[in-house]
């Protein structure tokens, strides 16, 4: 439900960056995320207490420097630092808890913009239908739209409970594949484009966890004989050649957000 609201929101937000180098969009997104994180931190944490605890930790460190010939004092100071550190963690936990839900949702959306590379015209990939239960050969038909060609299949792979096709991208565009599986009519999106756009590698089942993990496309109907439909996209590289991985963008995102958060904490008056 939330996803059906977030999908168009993120599509819209990232629209200006679709034709640009992925790092441009990622930098802006990281900057916005950093500001967001700082604000949430400011609003939900007890800034005064945090500042006090940080002062106490510094005091402890100073103590160690000062009494460096007194083992007893050093030990006591170390215990103090440890205690204050735990307090710091407790205080920081509150905003982290506030942030975790929106962050997961945001990351999940971004994953489908930056985690995969597009299909180029001429490129082939697989469409895989995961069946819910083992049974005999299902009737399976794939109707491909004009911009996509079916190269091979259906192949029924009983050991995997799967029906698969190989499709080839022909022309850029957003398409819906129409599938008929055992009398059930289902569809699956496929995007032929190299822009930074939302790509859905999996149309998930209606189960909550699946929807949380794969929010890029509305789930399959409840009670379907199909558990999920995959369109395999090559892993993205966040615009860094040689770094092809579904997680590359996330590393870039976290590093940039951290850098921005540190750089902006003073101007925004946030203690953490």
């Amino acid at each position, binding site marked *: 439900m939330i996803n059906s609201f977030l999908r168009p929101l993120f599509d819209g937000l990232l629209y200006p960056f679709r034709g640009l180098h992925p790092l441009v969009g990622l930098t802006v997104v990281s900057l916005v995320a950093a500001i967001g994180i700082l604000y949430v931190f400011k609003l939900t944490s007890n800034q005064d207490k945090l500042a006090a605890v940080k002062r106490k930790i510094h005091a402890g460190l100073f103590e160690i420097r000062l009494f460096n010939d007194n083992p007893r004092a050093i030990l006591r100071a170390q215990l103090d630092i440890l205690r204050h550190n735990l307090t710091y963690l407790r205080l920081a936990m509150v905003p982290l808890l506030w942030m975790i839900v929106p962050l997961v949702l945001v990351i999940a959306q971004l994953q489908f913009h930056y985690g995969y590379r597009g299909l180029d015209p001429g490129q*082939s990939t697989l469409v895989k239908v995961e069946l819910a239960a083992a049974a005999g050969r299902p009737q399976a038909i794939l109707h491909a739209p004009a911009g996509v060609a079916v190269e091979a299949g*259906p*192949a*029924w792979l*009983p050991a*995997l409970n799967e029906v698969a096709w190989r499709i080839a991208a022909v022309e850029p565009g957003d398409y819906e594949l129409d599938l008929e599986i055992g009398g059930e009519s289902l569809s699956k999106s496929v995007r032929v484009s190299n822009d930074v756009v939302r790509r859905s590698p999996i149309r998930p089942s209606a189960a909550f966890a699946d929807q949380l993990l794969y929010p890029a496309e509305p789930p399959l109907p409840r009670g379907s004989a199909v558990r999920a439909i995959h369109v395999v996209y090559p892993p993205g590289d966040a615009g860094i050649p*040689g770094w092809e991985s579904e997680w590359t963008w996330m590393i870039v995102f976290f590093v940039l957000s951290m850098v921005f958060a540190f750089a902006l904490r003073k101007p925004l008056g946030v203690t953490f």
Partner: protein
Amino acid sequence: MSRQRRAPGPCGGRVHNVLRAAWSRAQRAKPSLGVAALVLALGCGGGGQGDGGPKVIVLGFDGMDYGLARHFMETGAMPNFARLAESGRFGPLGTSVPPLSPVAWSNFITGMDAGGHGIFDFIHRDPERMIPEFSTSKAESSERTLKLGKWQIPLGSGKIELLRKGEPFWSVLERRGVETTIIRMPANFPPSGSASRELSGMGTIDILGSPGIFSYYTSELFAADRQVSGGVIYEAWEEDGVVHAELHGPDNPFLVEKEEVTADFELYPDPEEPIAKLVVGSEERLLKVGEWSDWVPVTFELIPTQSLHGMCRFYLKALRPELQLYVSPINFDPLAPDIPISTPEDYATELARRSGRFYTQGMPEDVQALKAGVLDRREFLAQAKIAGDEIRRQYEPVLADFTSGLLFYYFGNLDQVSHMMFRAIDRQHPRYDPVADAPFAGVIEELYRQADEIVGYTLDHMADDTLLIVMSDHGFASLRRRMSLNTWLYERGYLAVKNPDLSQDPGFFANIDWSRTRAYAVGLNGLYVNLAGRERDGIVPPAERRALMEEIAAELLATIDPATGQPAVTKVYRREEVYRDRGAIDVGPDLIIGFARGTGGADDSSLGGVPPEVFTDNDGEWTGDHGMDHETVPGILLTSRPLKRPATELKNLAASILAELGVEGFPATADPGEK
């Protein structure tokens, strides 16, 4: 001390540093952007237009025969060649002694003959160990290793060494400030390092350190007992809807005990339809029976932080009644090369990014699979087309990048396919079958047509003032008869065997009794004296060498092939006479045998075997060849305008090219009489 390991071993230790590669790419990108901007500002932009310096493009078509090319030019099959010949020059180009590609291209590269560059054949022999070995490169692992239980860590890097001597002509050009791009020059692996851009070609190894070892997985009973050359057959069955099998890599260099690294793969056949799903690591492909996969990357884990990056193509030949799955030799992946295959090191990666992964093994056409019957002729042609198309596709961006200096680009498809398809145009060939060969009668003409198209494409895309040179290293002839030099030597008493039942000969010199052998053959055209002090078990005193050579030469020239009634050998060259260059002559055979046109050396003999018959009909798939009297198989030279310094043979072609680019005095060490 660790023992010698095969080539990829030491290289596994080289970490592919993506960051560094990305950085150097970025660095390089800057000036070219600047140049591009300048060109636009001056308003002289345009495809393939140069910056005003002299421009030479050399297209090398391995094995293009002078007689056949002339014929196809006359029949209209090669209009671009014909057009070029009118404005420029077309003629035969003298080849090397012997006329084998690594020798011939080395003549071109160094401006010297084999006496100078030291490549006399595909195969030489190590006189100390008395085993046949490759002539052009040698792999050595790190000598010292640190052993930790079952693991060992190579200290210092192993290396692969190019054995060709002499300075390549492009390094002279680079020294004079002329930019060069050298793509797939044979006998240039590992790449010389002196060109601005280089990609290694013939001689480049697969992941097993070989020119190419394919794999074949089948459910046929006892199939794995069959030994084939250039491939390995594995048994594999479907169980509960899946076939579990392994891809086989080299020995793990990090293990003290020799142990092959492997990578699992699964094949899921559809129980009814002729289609199956292939899973290799995280890679998935759907393959119909009769289909080839694209390149499937495969990673071999050596130790947790180190892995080898290979890739292979799968061909699903059949699912029922028996599973038949061909897997190409595992090539080093150009997207993450673990061995040096280009200059700069990431150039291969850049090419792969631009026009796709490509065969990195030097001779990609899998002739061995056809000879072993694992692929039939149609399947072989499909595979050869895939390999040829990759190289043609890659030519486009390389040509587009070329603005000045020298571009050399090599095409090996014509040579390899001609070897396998020659009988279809030779009715006299012992294996010629009018019915079976009819569908293939046009294959060779098609190869020449494709070469012509490449020339046409080049003419359309190069600047007008570019000099285009089209060349080949040798010609071609039908291979009807085979002659085993070792058997001939044995029958005449020059060579002795341990077991006179020659049908049991295991090859590789194993049956030769060195204590009574005065001469032996190894390689395609080489004959050696078993010389005391040079060969490990040499018995011929140096003082008697010359007389022995003369005696053998005279007898060889007088030998008549009973089937043809003609001499089997038309030339016997003494190395001291036929080679004018010196420096590496000691490596070579004492005598180089020029077989009569139509005759070639026997395979077993080439690898140090002594098969039962001296002469046999050539009944294999390898029906065209060129390892004959070099005067009978010239290559071609076609230039878009007359050369300032005409070249008549491979050896002096580079000097002509350099002259066009304003550089004289190549090679520095050449015999002055040759200039």
